[in-house]
């Protein structure tokens, strides 16, 4: 197994990030990924890991990634909700890992949803 000393170093570094997050409380951005049978079969796992990687790479302390079940629109999976503090939920559909860096850069970081990936754009087609 990778060294437990490494895990200890990760713990220490993460604790300082958690403390920073607590100071900025109320400002958490949530990324929620559909991980029911339909979502998993459509490719939700690599999408979720792509969000985790991007958030870790950019050290975005204020962002949490979580999972949810099936919301009944299986044909649009993988689906991802991005909820910025004080803003309405934006739902992305047919999400692929290669779309994640753009969603994080434009929406999570800069607050501008990527319109062409949203459910609204998909339903127009």
């Amino acid at each position, binding site marked *: *197994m*990778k060294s*437990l000393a*490494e*895990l*200890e170093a*990760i*713990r220490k*570094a*993460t*604790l300082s*990030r*958690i403390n920073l997050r607590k100071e900025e409380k109320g400002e958490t951005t949530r990324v929620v990924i559909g*991980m*029911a*049978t339909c979502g*998993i*079969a459509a490719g939700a*796992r*690599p999408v*979720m*890991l792509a969000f*985790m*990687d991007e*958030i*870790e790479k950019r050290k975005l302390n204020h962002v*949490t*990634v*979580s*999972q949810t*079940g*099936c919301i*009944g629109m299986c044909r649009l999976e993988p689906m991802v909700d991005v909820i910025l503090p004080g803003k309405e939920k934006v739902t992305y559909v047919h999400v692929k890992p290669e779309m994640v860096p753009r969603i994080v850069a434009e929406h999570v970081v800069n607050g501008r949803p990527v319109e062409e990936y949203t459910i609204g754009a998909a339903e127009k087609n």
Partner: protein
Amino acid sequence: MRDLSLHLLDLVQNSITAGASLITIRLSLEESGMLTMTLEDNGKGMSPELLERVTSPFATTRTTRKVGLGIPMMKENAEKAGGSFTLESEEGKGTVLTATMDTRNIDCLPLGDLPSTMASIIMGSPDNPEFSLRCSSPGGEMSFSTEEIRPLLEGVSLAEPSVVQWIRESLDEEIQPILGGIMK
């Protein structure tokens, strides 16, 4: 599903929904190429009536829709690959799901990215239940448990991206020599 680890990711949700506090996944590959995949939980279990119809795609405990495809798809893929599928469950005690597959069968799905699957499972339910993974093959054996690493983290969540990444890399290092041959 594209691989067996995705089946695990999906089926584990049933154990979590059943209120399990410990979920154990075992993968055992024999010299002959037969793979046995076991998912065991100590959740609320199923009644004999539910157990009898649970492999039907039209059986589900959900109330929002009338289909449940996770278990029937696993059964189909196991049987298609020259294997078998069994479910044992007792109310109040838990459930054991066992699927066997011949990895040399052309219809057998690859195991897929098991380390990422485990990381995804743990990330989705970081506080409870505890997860345990045991893999064995002629190439060796390994075991991993969230119960072992949780005390070392002293309150830092298992869902923290840096911890998830450590779990993924750590498992990859350990699983590759044992089951690497059937992952792709």
